[in-house]
């Protein structure tokens, strides 16, 4: 007999309401995942003040609203600390913050309405063990399919392919307002006597004349680019990036990203973009020395040297998040490819932004940002409630490392709920932390070199 599963009906009263919160404000797994829908996990809750200086340096290097063509082409985002403490410092969250800032209106606000720009985010869900540059390009294409830039660009290209009168008619809603979504609604276009096939053909021809390959032009004009990418694979998926014995997608990925997509975005009015390459260690960890040199040279070809539309128009600026260990692995290859002369792979280089460990006050700001996002009472915003002053001090004393801080805060709130406590003071914090001491995995090899 079939048992029909039940859909959730409405929102039940939050377990966290006694603490003045709509939900658990802190992530139980404090690892940023930009594609997660949970604002605690995807970096949407972001305290700017603790990284004000780093944001300013990032802006100075890469945004440069009045000097956009001279922004740096390659830069690095580091976090202070060694291999262990360098993780969970907020590099991904900072990238997510800039991505959201620029992509919400394609840089209209950021660049004072002068031009548009796009952020493409590249990350690797697991370690990459071959076809490194190709998988990097494929990862970027997957993000492009997800971040909405294809549709919005298609809308503007359609608008430009219509006569001004047709355009006004299509954009206009019954209430007199303008809605750009109408440009992607074929029924509305047809209602105004516009032949869709002919319109797509005109857009495709325009794209081809701009340098996009004919077949790709057509798929972009028809809004079928994702399907085109999937058609390059036997399994018809976009992910995982690499599938053994069938790499047609990867054979074309660099050309698609650094030529076709660049031409497409330029045709749609984008002046440039950013390629955020997160967690480079997932890419370089399994590389041999030879692989690293090959990767660095290919990366340099695609992003710096003449040959691709990307380099001809200086389109993408690349930002790599890295840490000391990965950078040491890449250093020689970077030197051989000539990338070191463009941007030295070193936290002290002018092209580097380095995230410091937050101070106690800055760690407090991070906690407040998460609490504020989940407040039931607006009047409590900016306070540390439900923590008492000695409670928040006890929490901050445990660790100011962002990942540990958020993880500890989640444990404390869960403990308070469990014990039905509404004021989280020092005793509650200490109880929660002592009860949930994680089993540590000791590193017995740490710091032995000094003895030799």
């Amino acid at each position, binding site marked *: 007999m079939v048992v029909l599963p039940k859909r959730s009906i409405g929102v039940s009263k939050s377990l966290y309401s006694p603490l003045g919160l709509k939900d658990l404000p802190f992530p139980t797994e404090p690892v940023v995942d930009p594609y997660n829908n949970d604002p605690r996990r995807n970096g949407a809750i972001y305290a700017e003040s603790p990284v004000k200086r780093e944001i300013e340096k990032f802006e100075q290097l890469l945004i440069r609203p009045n000097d956009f063509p001279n922004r740096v082409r390659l830069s690095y985002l580091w976090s*202070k600390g*060694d*291999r262990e403490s360098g993780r969970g410092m907020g590099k991904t969250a900072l990238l997510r913050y800039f991505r959201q800032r620029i992509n919400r209106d394609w840089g209209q606000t950021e660049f004072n309405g002068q031009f548009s720009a796009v952020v493409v985010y590249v990350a690797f869900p697991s370690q990459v063990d071959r076809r490194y540059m190709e998988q990097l390009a494929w990862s970027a294409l997957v993000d492009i399919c997800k971040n909405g830039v294809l549709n919005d660009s298609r809308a503007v290209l359609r608008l430009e392919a219509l006569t001004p009168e047709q355009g006004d008619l299509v954009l206009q809603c019954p209430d007199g307002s303008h809605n750009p979504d109408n440009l992607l609604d074929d029924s509305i276009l047809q209602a105004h006597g516009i032949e869709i096939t002919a319109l797509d053909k005109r857009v495709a021809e325009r794209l081809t004349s701009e340098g996009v390959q004919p077949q790709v032009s057509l798929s972009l004009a028809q809004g079928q680019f994702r399907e085109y990418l999937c058609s390059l694979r036997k399994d018809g998926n976009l992910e995982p990036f690499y599938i053994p014995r069938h790499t047609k997608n990867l054979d074309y990925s660099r050309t698609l990203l650094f030529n076709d997509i660049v031409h497409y975005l330029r045709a749609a009015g984008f002046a440039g973009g950013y390629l955020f390459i997160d967690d480079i260690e997932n890419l370089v960890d399994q590389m*041999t*020395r030879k692989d690293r040199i090959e990767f660095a040279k290919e990366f340099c070809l695609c992003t710096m040297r003449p040959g691709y539309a990307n380099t001809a128009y200086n389109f993408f600026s690349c930002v790599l998040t890295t840490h*000391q*260990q990965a950078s*040491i*692995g890449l*250093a*020689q290859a970077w*030197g*051989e490819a000539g990338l070191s002369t463009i941007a030295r792979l*070193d*936290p*002290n280089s002018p092209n580097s932004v380095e995230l410091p460990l937050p101070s106690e006050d800055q760690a407090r700001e991070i906690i407040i940002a998460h609490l504020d996002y989940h407040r039931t009472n607006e009047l409590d915003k900016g306070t540390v409630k439900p923590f008492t002053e000695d409670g928040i001090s006890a929490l901050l004393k445990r660790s100011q490392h962002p990942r540990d801080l958020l993880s500890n805060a989640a444990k404390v709130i869960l403990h308070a709920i469990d014990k039905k406590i509404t004021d989280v003071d020092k005793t509650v914090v200490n109880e929660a932390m002592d009860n949930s001491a994680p089993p540590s995995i*000791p*590193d*017995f*090899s740490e710091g*032995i*070199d*000094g*003895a*030799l």
Partner: protein
Amino acid sequence: MKITSYNITDVSYHYIGLRVLAGLSSTARREEQTSAISRNVLKYVSDKALRLMLPEPKGTFETIGEKVCQELVHFQFARSIKGSYQLTDTGKHVLSLLNEGNYVELRRTMVTAHLQVYDNLRSIVQKYLDIGCIWLPIVEAGHLSMDGYIQWLLEPTFNGEASTLASAVLKNIQGKSPKKVEDALREIILRKVFSDISISVPLFHALCDRLVSLRLLNVMRANIQGREFAKSYSPCVAASPPHEWYIPLNVSLASGGTFMLYFCEPNMADKATQAELVSALDKAFSELPSKAGYYDLPEVRDFVCAHLRIPDAAFDEGINYLLDQKPSVLTVGLHYEGISGRRKPLSRSRETSQLYNLVRRV
């Protein structure tokens, strides 16, 4: 007792062993302890290779945990009780020296333990103290067809006998790869130098690595009229130490005798020692070729260590002290070429760790 294992090439593996035995819970079984040691040794070796831009380690180090534990038992730092290893009081003391950063005392303890326990290792050290150095040839493929090349490589060890020996060797090495030829020559040389003990080429190399990590040996690349050699020598001496930084070590042997040497332990924090290092560096800079004003740091290290007869590790310590001086007397840089296990870059850890293999005088 004789060392037969090739696996433990570095004394740091013993330190990891001590930490694991002390760090795991008292109920941990022997297999748990040995696999934790293997895991941590692999991590240590991989991290080090990555940090120093060296090739990744080839082995899995799976069996090393057991071997480390056995050696700790030989040193009487651990004992095997009811299916697990436990640290002895001496082992706990050595561990506390490590964890408290009392490295000078720690090194002496480890040197003493090694020399006390391992007869073949002690014989090698004794030989170095007696004869000064050993010249092991580095065979270059391009030179193999040169007339008299083999004789040339054997000369530093065999002098007048080299010619006769070379003729005999040539018959056996026909058609062999340069690596095989090199091993064959090294085997002949080791047989001559260590006529009283039997030692294979791989074991000798493994023991040399161990002696380097104990600061009892330096292995440098040396060139005699175009011939390349791995020249090994001990910075320690049997008598009449040439500098005040030598410390007498008297090692009581199980057989009843005493093994005595002067262990080279310069205090690089000392200003007078730093001044000696600077003058040795100046001598190196005046004799070595420079590239665009910089000198190859591994070459400078070889030169200065041979000149002052100090361990390689002490040189690196000294350079780090000189770089800390304000204003520093040296500038360092990095060239991505030529880094290998024998030509290690200088590792400098401050806020972030940095590598350098170029050096010059300010």
